[in-house]
């Protein structure tokens, strides 16, 4: 086995998932150094400080919300759900990519997932954390929100299990738990690496405890791999179920624009779409800042762009079916909805949504765009915006004009709506900053495996 760079025979024209020239040690060095040896950079400090301030905005907004009530937001009758639910669905959607990459791509044996799965999973967790804030705080009496849990009440009262909101509680909490578990199990070998390499006593203790006694024996590896595979199998259906259940919040309702059977697949596709967009949004600056271009290669970016293109087309199909079914069924409320989408007071949102989610991603058919980092970054932002708009159009705009024209209304977000939303962005980014400094952003163990694969390939 040669120690030098390995030139594996690549499939022609397909960029590599790991740039050549790495061995076990250099991979480990490179990734672990970000956590262990690199000094805190000014950039990290500045970025984290800004994110922290925005996190405090979230805290302040929620405090004010608890003092005054949900009336500080723009919701009203008929629009009972506003930014809170839009944000909830958006964040949950973003939280799809991580588990999808880790679990489904793992099961499908897609090697290219290796370098991005760790932070994608972390992103998933943080996105789910951001999402989980909203159902709790958006209710009128958040101190009573525990009524939604099936706890053994002395009054013998249970939640109303026919309500999709209860299904949501289970779907999201299960998804959050399994994602966290999956992420943590994947981290164990790396935590052990960090423990072994840490020079600082405190770090040794903390990483040591988290590593749960990992010694890297063959038996450990054997059990680890079984556990990881099982968890991947467990997480896979959850990726599909969580947004399906979230879509039931709307599909089960009778509001025109909500009451559609296409919602489950369409929501899942949309979630993956936005999730991959968010992975790109994070990966591109990350690889730049920490010089990880060799690990997160063009191949990764391009593959993610392809996934976005595919899911984007499914989403476009969903939009198309909404129109088609209205015309085909002749249901007057659905027809009116289509008319409102195109000509109503909120039509500009709809057109912006079409532009962001359908038209812009078509550029991804072009290879040059797929391999242009800057273009991908911008596109990922556009798609994230578009997916937020999509939820806004579905949740809010459908409610503005439903069945009874005498009760039609409009919605305008208030300062507190925006501050809460932006605050969760701060929370998300702040957690990512902590993650990058505290844990290996790329799986060291898996990268080493990749090196091993490559060297084997080289000798065959």
């Amino acid at each position, binding site marked *: 086995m040669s120690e030098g760079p390995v030139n594996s025979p690549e499939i022609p024209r397909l960029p590599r998932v790991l740039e050549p020239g790495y061995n076990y040690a250099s991979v480990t060095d490179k990734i672990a150094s970000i956590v262990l040896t690199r000094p805190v950079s000014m950039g990290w400090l500045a970025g984290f400080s800004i994110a922290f301030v925005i996190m405090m905005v979230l805290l302040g907004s929620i405090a004010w919300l608890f003092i*005054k*009530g*949900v*009336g*500080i937001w*723009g*919701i*009203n*009758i*008929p*629009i*009972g*759900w506003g930014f809170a639910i839009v944000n909830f669905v958006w964040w949950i959607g973003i939280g799809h990519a991580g588990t999808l990459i880790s679990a489904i791509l793992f099961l499908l044996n897609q090697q290219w997932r290796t370098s991005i799965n760790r932070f994608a999973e972390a992103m998933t967790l943080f996105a789910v954390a951001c999402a989980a804030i909203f159902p709790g705080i*958006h*209710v*009128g*009496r*958040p101190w*009573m*929100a525990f*009524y*939604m849990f099936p706890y053994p009440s002395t009054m013998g*009262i*249970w*939640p*109303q299990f*026919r*309500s*999709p*909101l*209860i299904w949501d*509680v289970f779907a999201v909490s299960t998804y959050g738990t399994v994602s966290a578990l999956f992420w943590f199990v994947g981290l164990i070998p790396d935590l052990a690496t960090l423990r072994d390499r840490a020079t600082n006593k405190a770090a040794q203790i903390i990483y040591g405890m988290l590593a749960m006694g990992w010694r890297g024996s063959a038996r450990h590896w054997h059990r680890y791999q079984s556990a990881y595979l099982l968890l991947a199998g467990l997480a896979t259906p959850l990726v599909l179920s969580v947004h399906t259940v979230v879509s039931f*919040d709307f599909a*089960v*309702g*009778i*509001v025109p624009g909500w009451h559609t059977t296409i919602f489950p697949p369409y929501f899942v596709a949309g979630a993956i779409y936005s999730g991959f967009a968010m992975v790109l949004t994070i990966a591109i600056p990350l690889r730049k800042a920490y010089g990880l271009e060799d690990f997160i290669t063009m191949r990764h970016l391009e593959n993610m762009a392809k996934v976005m293109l595919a899911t984007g087309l499914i989403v476009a199909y969903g939009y198309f079916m909404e129109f088609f079914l209205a015309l085909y069924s002749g249901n*007057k409320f659905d027809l*009116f909805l289509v008319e409102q989408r195109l000509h109503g*007071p909120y039509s500009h949102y709809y057109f912006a949504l079409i532009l962001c989610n359908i038209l812009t991603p078509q550029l991804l058919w072009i290879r040059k765009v797929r391999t242009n980092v800057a273009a991908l970054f911008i596109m990922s932002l556009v798609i994230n915006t578009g997916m937020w708009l999509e939820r806004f159009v579905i949740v809010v705009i459908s*409610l*503005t004009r*439903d*069945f*009874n*024209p*005498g*009760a*039609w*209304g*409009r*919605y*305008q977000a208030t300062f507190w709506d925006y501050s809460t939303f932006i605050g969760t962005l701060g929370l998300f980014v702040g957690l990512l900053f902590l993650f990058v400094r505290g844990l290996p952003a790329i799986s060291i163990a898996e990268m080493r495996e990749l090196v091993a694969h490559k060297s084997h390939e080289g000798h065959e």
Partner: protein
Amino acid sequence: MDGMSDHEHKHDQDNHPPTAEEREVRGYPLDLAAANAKAASGAGKQYWRSIEELAGDPHFEDLLHREFPRAASEWDESVDRRDFLKLMGASMALAGMAGCGRTPEQTIVPYVKAPDGLILGKPQQYATVMPFGADAVGILVESHEGRPTKIEGNPDHPSSLGATDAITQAAILNLYDPDRAKTPTFVGDIRTWAMFQSAAADLATSQKAVNGAGLRILTGTIASHTFAAQIDYLLKLFPQAKWHQWEPAVSDGAREGAKLAFGRYVNTVCRVEKANVILSLDSDLLGSGPGHIRYAKEFSRRRTLNGPADEMNRIYVVEPTPSVTGSAADHRLPLRASEIELFARAIAAKLGLGGSVELSSKDAEKFAEAVAKDLEKNKGASLVVAGEQQSAEVHALAHAMNAALGNAGATVYYTDPVEANPVNHAESLRELAADIHKGKVDLLLILGGNPVYDAPRDWAFSEFEQKLKKVHTVVHLSSHYNETSEFSHWHIPETHFLETWSDARAYDGTASVIQPLIAPLYQAHSAFEVLAAFTDKPGVTAYDAVREHLKTVLGDGDNERKWRKTLNDGVIAGTALAPLAVSAKFSPASLPPAKTTAKDDLEFIFRPDPTIYDGRFANNGWLQELAKPVTKTTWDNAALVSPATALRLGIGRNIASRGGEHGQVLTSVVNIELSNGKVTAAAWVVPGQADNVVVLPLGYGRKRAGETGTNKGFNAYSVRASTALWTATGGKLSVTSDEYPIACTQYHHNVEGRKIVSSASLEEYKKNPNFAHEKDETPPVGLTLYQNFEELGYYKHYKWAMAIDLTKCNGCSACVVACQSENNIAVVGKDQVMRGREMHWIRIDRYFETGPTQKDEDSEVPALANPPAYFQPVPCQQCENAPCEQVCPVGATVHSAEGLNDMVYNRCIGTRYCSNNCPYKVRRFNFLRFQDWETPSLKLIRNPEVTIRSRGVMEKCTYCVQRINNVRIESEKDNGGIGREIRDGEIVTACEQACPSEAIVFGNANDPNSRVSKLRAQQRNYNMLGELNARPRTTYLGAVRNLNPDLEKA
């Protein structure tokens, strides 16, 4: 250790109550001799706060320094001088009371001897009347342990027949208004009633010397004959004194018209139920004015349709701006106020009363032709009514037409005036102003009213407040310290009508006693007492006065028994005024040519506001938040213009994104210059208004109304001249580029072709009795995934249902306020209404019959020139397949065995999912803490049987479940405990109770003989949005209009 605790310390040691002796030692032995000596020796004026101070008591000095603000001398530096002075002032004031030690008296004892018929926890009802101008509405007031909480109509009273209007419903809030004046004041300083009485005695003495030459009394319209008798008595004592009257929102037209027609003042009483055809000349017969509640009731009874064979009455309304009556009319013609007289003359000419008139427009001509023909056809069974704001000529013409048609004595009769001492109010006030101007007035008693705010602005009345300064003493009696009080010397808080004895006559003269339900909450006094203070019997109470006066009415015999019966019934039977044998001696030909306005000139007309009236209810949150029936705006008035005029003048409006159609509309601000006054107002476009007419609703722009009513809207009185009290021309209106947000609860007026309102003409109904089910897509029962409650054994016993007859509803909104009062519904304020968060459990949607939504404003104009309007009260529909129940995650809205969608407030966590899923959007959410939990007086108004909802909880109509359960309990106790079925009509919901049109019927749908079952069995009965298969228990009966075939458009 300070001076006080020295003594306290000793107490601690002794640890037993001090004996008298000890008190003597430990207290401050007052050196009265020293005090007297000091007082005697003092040179010049001395002010002392207490005898202790006068005596130079060192304890007092010490107390002054120490007692109350223990920290006064060691107060931290940050306190500013003003606060310090305040504190020291309080300290001194309290130091003076050091020896007093009186704690407020509070006695909490159970009823040892309960009042008659009182069962604790059970409300009682007392009959009384609410005086209102030349009318009195008979009411029953619900009282919970001495606390009046709800007003309902008195079925035995002729002007109510059991119903009320919105204002009557809301009047109870005035009683508990926290902004009411609380004590008598003299130039703003607090005085006692005794001080006022002695001041009044002095003033009376000085007036006595000049026979009352400097005494003037100003009142509104007085329908209390006791009070009138008292004024007469005062005028006898002071022969040269004068009584003036000013009622800003009632025109002199009716009085002067009667004079023109009959040569004397008469009161006109209609018998609407006898009329087959009614022509309203700008009269809001069903919505305002004396007797309107009864008229609405009689009117709607003639529109009862049990089947296609039934007949209806027909009403034509000619008016400049849509009123409740106009909106409910079969045929409506928008005409400018000045053209109403021409129109009346045209009809009169066609009825053969002489004169000949050419109407300017073809439409009007055609309309007049058809109306005249219809009136002719129904001689003796038709009715012509002139509007309150119309001129004497129009009233006289109406009298003449009724005489010519043989209606006088049949559908209308005349009596002596109901009001005491009818006068021309404009003249009366002008005379008063002239006298003040000449310096003739020394003492002015303003008993009720607010002339500084509502007197006309021109000539003698300009700056009425300046005039008041010329009067030596102005005594003002009013419930609030208002604009006029500021310019008065004495202000006496006026009692609410639920706090005092009085009497009043109804629209037909029926007398009633006003009995108090509660002692005055504050140091308030009635007009009787104020007036009595100036007579030789200053101690006379209102009770004495009323009983004394009633002796003449009740006659001899067992007076006490009659008195008790009067109080019980709320009406003195047989006191209605007898019809007068007068006949209209009036020929339209004798009239001078009518004044007309050039076609393109703007005409400005004044109207009392539909909710806050002339401004007296400006501080009533219920009325402020009540959407005005036609415009659906709240909390503001606006200069109303027609769509075409708005287009011509460039008055724009934008639906604001906050709140939108259900909340906020930004509308152009206009400057109006009129009658030498100027006002800046928001403009509002009203479909169906006559072109080139600007309506200026009165009652807003109050400067001192209280927290609720101050600085809302614009003050139309500021451009109102005494020469043009109702219709003014020659004004200028300029549109500015500013926008003003109006809180409008329903801006979308088109049903968009949905199954919301079903309507037909009577002819169509006869041809197709099933019109309400045209295009009905209601799926068959059972075609649903929802639980079938019937199979689960629900609805076995009672099955509550409500039917609302859209033929009868005229949008008056009494039900909305009744519901608010019954169910403790919060007022949220303009800002929240603009965000679409008003809390009314029942709302009245108003739709116009136009084509599909017009995108282009230009093409919208003809469609909205005179569209038929429909009103639809929307309470909770209590669906059997309720979409709300399905989605609540915590089971806070659940189905009851009787089919109600119950709200469990303490289970609700406020996800608002139920509201999103409600196709009727009847659910209301406490987005913030809307209920007032602090204001003590508002705690008293609450119905103890209904939970007060706090923030974060969803609420909605419950079909007044508390009333259902009250009746259920009674029915189950009945038959010696065996119980019985609840009878039909036994449960009356608050909305049903208030409805003057009897449009709302509630009952048990399982009982085939109940009224509601019969209505539900009618073919006209339909479900709103039936295709959704929600199976609402609230159903509607299609609106039928009795159209004249001659007028039906091709």
